């Protein structure tokens, strides 16, 4: 009975430990899962007699979709079965033909029609959600934000061939290519009048972007309304700066695809910074403007996705993240993410070429129309597309960056923000902090352990060992507090003194020791062997005091009165008050007892007959120490260092409080850093459960967990091996 109870209890504790590891995997693994998609429904084109589809759109709950047609009609239908809800005819002026069409942007859910008389009409589709009898009912309707009367775009009344429209808070901008080859920019600003219901209260300006723009095939205007891209039949893109609506400026022209290929689909990525270009070879290429040294913005080829062989026929973008869907002539649809450079899924959605493709607002469904007029409605599960091995550990060329970089920036106020989840800067910070901490801790703790285990008198050892071990128990929050609020300002003020101290201390100690050895024997024997450390305490204090007292003088003579400004101005080294030096000292202090305690045990455990033999053969104590004892104990010291390293890597509070927590990659001792652990402590409470950010933070914790676990296991195995060896000696 007791056996069973204890057995069950014991095993459950062991299982609990395993559970930690498994739970981490359970949270982290979904990050790397590809997307999956299932066909839900397929039906013939709803309201087929309303004309050819120009644009498809879905509302947020993926219940209703809308189809805007070439005959100027809007057909609303149920997504599940294709049943038509309503068919509305747009108020077209008499005697005009539809010559241009543009989907405005996915956030305002609007489209624009251009007509043969140089006018245009903007239509918005919106959905009202009501809950009669606790059941959700969605009612679609059309709105005309700029009025039902078409806006005059071209004063010459030439037919509009291509159209691009974007609306801001009080302004609407239209770019249009006319049939006679002109490129126009029209801006409508709401006038500041008190009767703003007045329709005539729009101030209209027209500017000519190009007199002879050629055969414009694609025309795009971004949502900030600062740039226009016009792509002509020769695959050449013209990049216009339209910040000044009255004086647009051609920035540069560039060929987007090589000779022999043809552009077959063009779309902005969410945020309208990147341009996606699909071509006849089946590749999709991402371009965005990159600033060069002279401050010019040049459209640059960033990366390409080549999954298809057949020409790309349609591109659709996800809302709120940098992903897109591409369809090709063979009926395949691929799901991609630009930041993660991932191809998440490739599925054959239709047996024919796909003509139209749209992604649901929540990126959980897609709707495709094929050449034969068949609609295909699919559900999509695609939770974490932006995370990949390359986006976590490689350089990524983020939008608006001048070159590929390692960046950690997980959140921002903007909706179209591209999360930058590179673990490299924070891993680097972890290694940097651990490196400087070990630099401080290793010499002190190992030398200290050597002395304490081998040279120190027994009585003193009984006091010294527990005192240093109590250091390990000091809460790190207190060390961090002292490091951040006391040590950091102190170091900043006494920088030259601290460096003098570092260089002065070893020779100073040797000098004091030498002088002591020259004293008459009577004085020397007053203090027995093994008490040197006590003797040195006043010496160390004196040297420290001297170095610190000399600090202002040194600063005056060598650094022009202020070493900090000297560093910044003369050496070009940036100086943070809370820097790696502070972390190195504070965390070094925290790690010393760990290394000291284990190393001391290892050295003390070396069998006495070994050292006695060496001494008997005439070796000096130090030779015995160095050649015999240390050699035997070296695996133990190695394991002590490993355990110290494990602690330095995982320490949270000290780095959190003693650094500025800036995720920069810079090995300078005067710069701050951010470590994996501090990053978790700072960001975890604010991250949304099961979001990508949350899982990436779990991944960071898993990395820490595995690293320390492996390091500690190696240390432990080495130690056990050593113990066996000692017992055989």
């Amino acid at each position, binding site marked *: 009975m007791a056996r069973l109870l204890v057995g069950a209890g014991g095993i459950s504790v062991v299982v609990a430990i395993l559970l930690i590891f498994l739970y981490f995997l359970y949270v982290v693994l979904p990050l790397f899962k590809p997307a999956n998609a299932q066909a839900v429904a397929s039906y013939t084109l709803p309201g087929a007699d309303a004309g050819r589809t120009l644009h498809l759109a879905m509302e947020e709950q993926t219940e209703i979709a809308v189809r805007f047609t070439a005959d100027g009609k809007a057909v609303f239908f149920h997504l599940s079965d294709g049943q038509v809800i309503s068919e509305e005819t747009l108020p077209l002026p008499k005697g005009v033909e539809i010559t241009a069409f543009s989907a405005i942007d996915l956030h305002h859910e609007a489209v624009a029609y251009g007509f043969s008389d140089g006018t245009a009409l903007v239509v918005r589709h919106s959905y009202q959600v009501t809950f009669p009898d606790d059941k959700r009912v969605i009612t679609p309707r059309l709105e005309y934000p700029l009025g039902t009367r078409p806006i005059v775009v071209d004063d010459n009344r030439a037919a509009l061939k291509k159209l691009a429209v974007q609306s801001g808070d009080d302004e609407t901008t239209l770019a249009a290519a006319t049939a006679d080859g002109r490129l126009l920019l029209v801006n409508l600003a709401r006038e500041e009048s008190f009767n703003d219901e007045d329709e005539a209260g729009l101030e209209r300006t027209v500017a000519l972007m190009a007199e002879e723009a050629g055969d414009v095939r694609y025309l795009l205007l971004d949502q900030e309304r600062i740039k226009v891209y016009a792509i002509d039949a020769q695959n050449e893109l013209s990049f216009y700066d339209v910040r000044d609506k009255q004086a647009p400026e051609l920035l540069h022209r560039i060929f987007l695809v090589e000779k022999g290929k043809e552009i077959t689909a063009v779309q902005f990525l969410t945020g309208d910074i990147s341009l996606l270009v699909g071509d006849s070879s089946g590749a999709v290429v991402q371009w965005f403007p990159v600033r060069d040294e002279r401050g010019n913005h040049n459209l640059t080829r960033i990366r390409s996705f080549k999954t298809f062989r057949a020409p790309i026929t349609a591109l659709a973008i996800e809302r709120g993240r940098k992903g897109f869907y591409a369809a090709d002539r063979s009926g395949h649809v691929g799901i991609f993410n630009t930041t993660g450079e991932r191809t998440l899924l490739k599925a054959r959605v239709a047996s024919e070429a796909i003509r139209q493709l749209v992604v649901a607002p929540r990126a959980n469904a897609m709707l495709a129309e094929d050449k034969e007029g068949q609609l295909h409605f699919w559900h999509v599960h695609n939770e974490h597309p932006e995370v990949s091995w390359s986006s976590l550990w490689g350089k990524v060329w983020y939008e608006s960056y001048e070159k590929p970089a390692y960046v950690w920036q997980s959140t921002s106020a903007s909706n179209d923000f591209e999360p930058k989840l590179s673990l490299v800067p924070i891993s680097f910070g972890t290694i940097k902090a651990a490196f400087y901490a070990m630099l401080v801790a290793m010499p002190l703790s190992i030398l200290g352990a050597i002395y304490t285990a081998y040279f120190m008198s027994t009585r003193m050892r009984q006091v010294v060992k527990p005192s240093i071990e109590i250091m390990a128990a000091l*809460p790190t929050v207190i060390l961090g507090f002292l490091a951040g609020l006391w040590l950091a300002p102190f170091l900043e003020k006494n920088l030259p003194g601290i460096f003098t101290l570092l260089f002065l201390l070893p020779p100073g*100690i040797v000098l004091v020791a030498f002088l002591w050895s020259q004293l008459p024997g009577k004085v020397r024997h007053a203090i027995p062997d093994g008490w040197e450390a006590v003797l040195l305490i006043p010496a160390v204090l004196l040297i420290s005091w001297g170095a610190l007292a000399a600090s202002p003088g040194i600063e005056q003579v060598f650094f022009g009165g202020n070493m900090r400004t000297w560093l910044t101005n003369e050496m070009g080294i940036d100086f943070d008050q809370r820097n790696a030096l502070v972390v190195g000292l504070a965390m070094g202090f925290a790690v010393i007892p760990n290394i000291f305690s284990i190393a001391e045990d290892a050295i003390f455990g070396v069998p006495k007959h070994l050292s006695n033999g060496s001494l008997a053969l005439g070796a000096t104590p130090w030779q015995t120490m160095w050649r015999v004892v240390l050699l035997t104990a070296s695996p133990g010291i190695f394991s002590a260092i490993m355990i110290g390293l494990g602690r330095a890597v995982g320490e949270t509070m000290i780095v959190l409080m003693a650094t500025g927590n800036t995720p920069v990659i810079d090995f300078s001792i005067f710069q701050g850093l951010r470590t994996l652990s501090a990053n978790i402590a700072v960001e975890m409470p604010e991250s949304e459960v099961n979001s990508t950010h949350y899982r990436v933070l779990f991944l960071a914790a898993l990395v820490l967990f595995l690293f320390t676990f492996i390091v500690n296991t190696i240390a432990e195995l080495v130690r056990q091996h050593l113990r066996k060896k000692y017992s055989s000696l």
Partner: protein
Amino acid sequence: MAMRKFTKWYQSGAPWVWLSAGAVSICLLMVFGILLLIVMRGMGYFWPGELVQLTYRDGAQETVLVGEFQEHEQVPAAQLRAAGIELPAEQKTVQRHLFKVGNRDVLGQDFRWLLDTHITAKHYPAELVVLERREWGNFYGYLKAIKRDGNVVAEGEAAYRELSGRLDGALKLHGEIRTIEKQQIGAINYSLERLRLDRRVLELEGEDTPEALAELEQERLALEERYKTLQTSLVTLYQESKHDGVVMQDANGQEKEILLSQVVRVYQPNAMSVIDKCRHYLTKVWEFVTDEPREANTEGGIFPAIFGTVVMVMIMTVFVTPLGVIAAVYLREYARQGALTRTVRIAVNNLAGVPSIVYGVFGLGFFVYFLGGSIDQLFFPEALPAPTFGTPGLLWSSLTLALLTLPVVIVATEEGLSRIPRSVREGSLALGATKAETLWRIVLPMASPALMTGLILAVARAAGEVAPLMLVGVVKLAPALPLDMNAPYLHLDRKLMHLGFHVFDVGFQSPNVEAARPLVYATALLLVVVIVVLNLLAIYIRNRLREKYRTLEG
């Protein structure tokens, strides 16, 4: 000659021995230096500093300031000259003081940096008074008069004598107000919230019959009735507390009236004798340990943080003791000592080295969101979408720390078990006891000091751990203690305050770091004392234990 001596000495290897001795000295100096720093800064916080009235000349302007010196530093004169400050040509460095001027409501900030050369006169008038206030920090100045309802009651010398009696009255009133607000009204609010949830339960279970609802409504009305009576008595108390006020004069001669209900303590530091100061010191220490925080934790006491830490650690002990003991007994006494057990032992050992933040992440994900979320779904559907256990809280903090300290307890207990001589066990078995009886009656009692050592170390570690708690349940200011007079008395779902987090929060995230720093040192001192004492205790027990078994073996 000296060179030859040195070479000879060098060849003996002595410099290296001395260098390694130096490393020990440096380590010792660092440990005791840090402890000393914390002790000095932490203890100094409560000592009433002398109030200085000084004349400060800044350019042509002369101002009179009253306050306390906090810190001093030497600044190179060149640096100040570069900033456009005129100094005598021969001066190399200037002493600069951090001067606490208080009176934040009048002056806008608590502290000023003063240059020693610009101070033209210093006095220490005995009549200077410190008013510790509930808001706006200390007020430094002269006591002019005491007023009641706008009429002067006492003036000048007599005012200070009159003050102490009236202040006692005001403090008593404040105590009554606090009792009503915190305890009585708090209890009513708690009951009202329970009633709301009861009603929601009825609705969810479809048992919201009119009778049942009417019953609840009746209870609610009764509570509201009680609330109203309390409210009226509160209003009278508040009015009463507004009668008494003091008129203070600040350094510039401006007068300011302060209500006595806003005052916590009054004293004249310059007129105090050493014994007075000692008494003052002790009351301040007492206040620090037993009182609630004021002014966003930067003043007053840290009682909720102490209480939170203690409760959390105690609950953690309840979890970790049985688990640790059973695991250790299993590993040492029952499991077959093979490769698997050795692997498990190494794994357990290594868990002690896993960074604490990793446990925090696990606790947040597994305990709070997964377990807590499920518990809410099953047992507290009435409160949803507001989470009950699906949010960081006391229970999850304790569990996370229990997991974190489990390896410590297992390792210590195992060590204790392994030290028990075989002969003792065999003796018991030979006398006819079963293995379970031997374990329960002989082995465990003998191993209990080792278990105690492990537990003490676990408690010491848990008390100082902050990083995981930041994720699973610690807040800067908890509205209520986790233990109170409302059933079920111990509220495991509440958030808690913690000494270590208090240090982090007040030291780094408070808007007025300069003013809060002494308090942080005091908190840090308390924490260090607790942890060092616990560790020394553990070391003592371990040593005694070793002695005991040595005699047994012999």
